[in-house]
Structure formats: structure tokens, C-alpha cells
């Protein structure tokens, strides 16, 4: 039966072939595809800077580039990866594509705003890349004053403005999602029938709307100080540089939850589908998403333990940082409990899910180490921190993104990719990732500072290991580009539901129609009910 599957005649990719039909589209799916292409470009640019970093750090001396240039490498790597890759990634690509069908809607609440959001993202990216080409920034992605405001000779203003602009893209996406989820659900789609992917994006959108404006105004204050010579953070005129840090981290800490919550949403979908079991503790997982969003706003000063905040404030923030780990742990337990006695399998999306489970656990737990005041005094600004956040951001968020991309690729394109090469890629990424970043925990613990281009000789072995791992990791990231592109022409036709998954998006054809559904879906099932789905999967290896 599966051999006779064909790509449907009418679908959203065929609905107009001109450039105009893409650039002026209101279809959330086309916008998602354009985001996919854009952020992939930014990912590889950010990756190039990582190559530069790891190349320099293969030897203990600073012999590849000058210290100033190295500063630019890690700054640009951070700026691009955080603001132009991770923050948009899952929401702008998978969220945009999937939220309307998942709730049974034709489109997001504000399709033109969605398109504007994309344009703004492009504008911000161009700004930042232009600044990069003209010489870049060396302040670190955190732009701490007074260096960034007064002393740095690099292109702080255009880079900061690029981030400011991209922030609006993030805000508009979040705004769109919140209104859509509240007001566009199909009849019968109550809050507790929503896929957990939607809950996760709702929580993410709250953070985007509430947090981003604060970093925006912080950038404005940095801008006026640097461009006009105003005094806001300038210590010479009574300003407080730590105030910059408070305002910066008020957003930038919740920002990390913008980066991880959508990946957790993907996880819930993957774990459920590939163990053919309802998520254990659905409402706990749903509420934990909200809890993470809210708690994420009250822990920011754990980035500032050694910046000169008061000891009392440090204790409060340390305690609160412990509490924010609890909802994340709830999710991790619930995913694990879902696997228990489930019919688990090992398709590529699920491989990424397994990777996420382990690596996020390590990343999250090391976060607790850092939340501990006494430990952080020693670990702050060492490679321990770098390893911690890469475990979460790469081992967690990027694995979630790749897992989601592999899971919904058949829906988005109508084609299956090579299962063999995708599994090879997933394993390569997992191995490469661990070889890159685990040694960084060790060198960090031994005291190697971050943002230095030289280090003591005795740390070279671990650094070489890390750089070698980075090469493998890079290879793992390049492979999907090849087999995904190959699948567009030569991949097996997927049909509407190749995974036998639950969820309204799998009731659409693959690729979907522009209006998603021909009739408004009737929602009568609870989420993740597998008894009703005919399993039509076929194991395949190319």
C-alpha cells in the first residue's frame, strides 16, 4: 500500500512559484521554511567562529590569532548563536509550521505580522553581519559596561542594534503564538487536549513578550551612552556598571528558557510517538512549562555572583535558582516514565531524544553546581560554565531542534530522508558533542578561564581532545544538509503519517495544503491516544 503513495498535486509549496509569492506570503508554513533557510545560514556562520576558537585553543599559546581577534571570535560566535540561531530556531521554524495545524487552525492569528517578523529578522541579521564584516565586536556577547560603553574600539553600536532589531522579530513571534493559542483553537480543542509542544511554545512566547523588551531598553541605554556620551553606566560620572548586568540578565536568563522550552516541547512529542504511549503526567509537564517560564524571571543574578552584588541578594538568587531546576526535573522524570513499558524504537528523531535526555540531565545538574554560591565563586568564568551551557544549548536545544526537524521533515516536504545516514549523523553528533564538551568540564574545574586565547601547558591534552571532538561534531552537522537536500528529490514519499503519530498535524496531507485542513477538524480525542491510530510504519534502510 505504501508503494503507491504519491506526493499530492496541490500543496503549499506548489501554491505559487514566483519569488513574489514567497516574499509576500501570508502562509505560516512558507514563512517557516524561509526561517529554516535563514537560521541555517546563521548557524554555519556562527559555527565558523567556533572553528576559529577551537583551532586557537588546540595549542596553549596564543599563536593563531591575537588576543583581540580571539575576543572577536567568541563574541561573534555567542551573538550569532544565541540571538540569530537558538532563540528563533524551534519557534520560528517548527512552531510557525506546526502550531496552527496542531490546534486545528488555518493560520496564525496575525499572518502579516508573521511575515514582518521574518523581514525584521533578516534586517537584524544583515546589520549584525555587516558589523562583523567591518571588524566585529570584542566585548563578549554579554556586552558588559564600562568596556562596551566606553573603552572598546570595535563595532559595538551596529552589532547591538542588530540584536535590538532581531529582538522585535522574537517579540512578534511570541505575541502571535499567544493570541493564536488563546483564540484560534478548533472546536473541542480544549487546553488539556493540546499537544505539549503547544504548551511549551505558549510558555516560551510569554518569555519572549515579557523579557525581550528589557534587553531592548538596555541596548538603547548602551547606545546612548556610547553614541552620545550620556552617563548611565559610566562609573566616572556616578553610574553603576552592575546595573547594566541586572538589566541585561533580566532578559538573558529567561532567554535560555526561550532556547530550551521549545526543545522540551519537541521532546514530549518524540518520546510519546516513539514509545507509543501517552506522556506520563501530561498536566505536570504542561504546568512545568509555565513554571519554568515564570521562575526563569526571578533567578537572573546567579550570573552576577562575583560581580559585586550583595551577599544577601546572592543567597536569595542562589536559592531561587535551585527551585527553577525542579520543573525541569519533573519533565525529565516524566519523559523517562513514559519510556517505561512503552514500545520504544530507535528511529533518528528518537535517537536525538535519547541524546537530549542524557545531555540535558548533565547540563541541568551542572547548572545546580553553578547555582551553589560557594562553588560558583571558583567556577565562574571558567570552562566549567562554558561546558554547562553547551550541554544545555547544544546537547539539549540543538538536539531537540534536530530531532524535531527529522520528525516533521516528512510532514513539511512529503519525503523521507535516508534513515541510515540520519542515524549515522545523529550518533556522530552525539559522540562529537561529548568529546568536545566533556573535557571542558574538567579543564574548567582545573581553573582554565573562559575567553582567554592561551592557557597553561598542562591543559593541552584536554583542549586538543575538545578541538578534535569539535571536528567530529561539525561533520555531524554537515551531513543533514546533504541528505535532507537529497531527500527533496529522491526521498521515499512519506504519506500523511509515516510515524503513526497522534496529533492533528498528522491528519493533514504531506506536504500540507496552504489552508491546512479542508474542513475544520473535530477534536474528540485526548492527546496521545495511540489505540485509534493504524500503524502504517515501515522500517527502511537506504
Amino acid at each position, binding site marked *: 500500500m505504501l508503494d503507491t503513495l504519491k506526493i499530492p498535486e496541490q500543496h503549499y509549496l506548489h501554491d505559487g512559484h514566483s519569488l513574489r509569492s514567497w516574499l509576500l506570503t501570508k502562509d505560516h508554513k512558507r514563512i517557516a521554511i524561509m526561517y529554516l533557510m535563514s537560521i541555517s545560514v546563521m548557524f554555519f556562520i556562527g559555527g565558523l567562529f567556533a572553528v576559529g576558537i577551537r583551532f586557537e585553543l588546540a595549542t596553549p599559546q596564543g599563536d593563531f590569532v591575537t588576543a583581540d581577534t580571539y575576543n572577536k571570535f567568541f563574541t561573534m560566535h555567542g551573538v550569532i548563536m544565541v540571538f540569530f540561531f537558538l532563540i528563533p530556531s524551534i519557534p520560528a521554524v517548527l512552531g510557525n509550521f506546526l502550531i496552527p495545524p496542531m490546534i486545528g487552525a488555518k493560520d496564525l492569528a496575525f499572518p502579516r505580522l508573521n511575515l514582518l517578523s521574518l523581514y525584521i529578522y533578516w534586517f537584524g541579521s544583515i546589520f549584525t553581519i555587516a558589523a562583523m564584516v567591518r571588524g566585529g565586536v570584542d566585548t563578549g556577547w554579554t556586552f558588559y559596561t564600562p568596556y562596551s560603553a566606553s573603552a572598546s574600539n570595535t563595532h559595538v553600536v551596529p552589532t547591538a542594534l542588530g540584536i535590538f532589531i532581531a529582538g522585535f522579530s522574537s517579540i512578534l513571534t511570541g505575541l502571535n503564538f499567544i493570541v493564536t493559542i488563546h483564540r484560534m483553537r478548533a472546536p473541542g480543542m480544549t487546553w488539556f487536549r493540546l499537544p505539549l509542544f503547544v504548551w511549551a511554545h505558549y510558555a516560551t512566547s510569554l518569555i519572549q513578550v515579557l523579557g525581550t523588551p528589557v534587553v531592548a531598553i538596555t541596548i538603547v541605554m548602551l547606545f546612548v551612552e556610547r553614541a552620545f556620551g550620556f552617563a548611565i553606566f559610566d562609573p566616572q560620572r556616578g553610574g553603576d556598571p552592575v546595573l547594566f548586568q541586572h538589566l541585561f540578565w533580566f532578559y538573558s536568563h529567561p532567554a535560555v528558557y526561550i532556547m530550551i522550552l521549545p526543545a522540551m516541547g519537541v521532546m514530549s512529542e518524540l518520546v510519546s510517538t516513539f514509545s507509543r504511549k501517552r506522556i506520563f503526567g501530561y498536566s505536570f509537564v504542561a504546568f512545568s512549562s509555565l513554571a519554568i517560564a515564570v521562575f526563569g524571571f526571578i533567578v537572573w543574578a546567579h550570573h552576577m555572583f562575583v560581580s559585586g552584588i550583595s551577599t544577601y541578594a546572592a543567597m536569595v538568587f542562589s536559592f531561587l535558582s535551585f527551585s527553577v531546576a525542579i520543573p525541569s526535573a519533573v519533565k525529565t522524570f516524566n519523559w523517562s516514565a513514559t519510556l517505561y513499558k512503552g514500545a520504544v524504537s530507535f528511529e533518528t528523531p528518537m535517537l536525538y531524544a535519547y541524546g537530549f535526555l542524557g545531555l540535558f540531565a548533565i547540563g541541568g545538574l551542572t547548572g545546580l553546581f553553578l547555582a551553589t554560591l560557594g562553588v560558583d565563586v571558583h567556577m565562574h568564568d571558567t570552562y566549567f560554565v562554558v561546558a554547562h551551557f553547551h550541554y544545555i544549548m547544544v546537547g539539549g536545544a540543538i538536539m531537540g531542534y534536530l530531532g524535531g526537524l527529522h520528525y516533521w521533515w516528512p510532514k513539511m516536504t512529503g519525503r523521507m530522508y535516508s534513515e541510515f545516514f540520519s542515524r549515522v549523523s545523529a550518533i556522530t553528533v552525539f559522540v562529537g558533542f561529548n568529546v568536545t564538551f566533556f573535557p571542558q568540564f574538567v579543564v574548567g574545574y582545573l581553573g582554565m578561564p573562559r575567553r582567554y586565547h592561551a592557557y597553561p601547558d598542562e591543559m593541552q591534552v584536554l583542549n586538543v581532545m575538545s578541538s578534535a571532538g569539535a571536528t567530529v561534531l561539525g561533520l555531524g552537522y554537515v551531513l543533514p544538509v546533504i541528505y535532507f537536500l537529497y531527500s527533496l528529490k529522491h526521498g521515499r514519499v512519506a504519506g500523511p503519517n509515516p510515524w503513526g503519530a497522534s496529533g492533528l498535524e498528522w491528519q493533514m496531507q504531506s506536504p500540507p495544503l496552504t489552508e491546512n485542513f479542508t474542513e*475544520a477538524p473535530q477534536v474528540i480525542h485526548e492527546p496521545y491516544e495511540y489505540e485509534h491510530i493504524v500503524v502504517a510504519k515501515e522500517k527502511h534502510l537506504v
Partner: protein
Amino acid sequence: MSNAVAHADHGHARADAPHPAQQHHFDNLAQQKEAAVIGMWLFLLTEILFFGGLFVAYMIYRVWYFDAFAEASRRLSLFWGGLNTAVLIGSSLTMALAVRAAQTNNRKWTINWLLITTILGCVFLGVKVIEYEDKFANHEVPGYNYDFSYHERHLAVEGHAPAAGEHREPSLSPEQLQQTTQIYFSLYFTMTGLHALHMIIGVGLMLVITWMAWKGKFDAQYYTPVEMSGLYWHFVDIVWIFLFPLLYLVNRHI
């Protein structure tokens, strides 16, 4: 768990045609309106937090440098500030009346009230230009030619005696004032400048909406853009309601 389901109609079997302003992905105009209201409020939320960051910076420095803030605040003209406050509150009234006119299908008065609102907004901006010019002339712009004592010296040179009861000894030395009042004025320009930028955008919005009203795009069922612009306008007014006491009235009683 109820399995009851309503089959939503996407406009095919409707007896009455949808309103021309209804977009295809909404079931009805009411849903579209409600979505717009929530969306606009979410945007205003971002504005609350945007200005909020400045207010936080202001609060902290006001506590730290109260005397400097008090001294610097006295350089602002209570007359112009008070006038601008009245103008903005008046424009909020006229804006609310414009929305009401749209609600009651009164095209003529929708346009009239919108135009009056626009004019009041321009008056506000004009007054701000006057105030800013004064600041530049008095060397009260940080990073430009900042000289806090210029104003006093200038008054003395021109032979203006200080107003009765005006002459007091500030608790800070001239050097301290020169340094720490720059934070006040930096925040003054950033806060009022950002506010003025929002006013300019608001005036632009008013012109667009007025044109749309003139073109007859609104009726009693659909006046959403008027209402949304109204929300924006009122918000900008609210920001000023806070800016006025914070910047102009720090310490006027000594």
C-alpha cells in the same frame, strides 16, 4: 470529558456574507476583534517593560543621588511640563471620543476628533522642542557641552537676580554636581526622547487612521484600527503621567 463537538463553519454555507474586513483565517469578526485586542495589549505589555527598564534605572539613581536629582530637576520648566501634561490628557479625551464616534458610526466626528488628537500631539512635540532647545542652550546635554553651572553663571551675567526664596545652598559641591547630575539628564533625555519618538509614531498612526476613516473604511461593526490606535495613544499618555512627576517634581519644596 465531553465529546461534544461543534462543527466550525469556515464561511461556505453561511447565509450572510462575512464583513469585508473579516480575514479568511478567522471564523467571525468577533473572534478577529478579540484577537486584535489581546494582540495589542500584548504589544503594550512589551512597551511597559521597555519603559520599565528606564524607570528601574531612574529609581536606583534617584535614591543614590537624590540631591543631584533634585538640583537638576529644578532646571526643568514646570510651566511647559504642566502644559504638556494637560495637552496629553486632553488628547486622550479626544481620542476616546474619536473611538466612540467610530462606534456610533459617526464618520464626520471620528475624523474631527482624530484630527484634534493629532493636533494636540503635535503641540506636545512642539513644546518638547522648546524644552530641548533650552537644554542645549544651557549646556545641560551630557556628552555634548555639559556644564551644570553654566545656567547659574549665565543668569548672574545677564543680571537676573534669583527669584525670591530661590537662593539656597545646594548640599553638593559644584564639581560633584557637574559629575552626578549628568546621570539625571542622561535619563531625562533618554526617557523623554523615547517618549517623544513614540509620540511621533502615534501622530503618524493618527494620520493613517484619519485617512482610513475619511475613506469610509470603518463602521459600527468594524472600527478595530481606531480602537487599537486609541490603546496605543492612551498608553503613551500613561507613560507621560509617570514621567511628569518623576522628572519635573523631584523636590520643589525647598
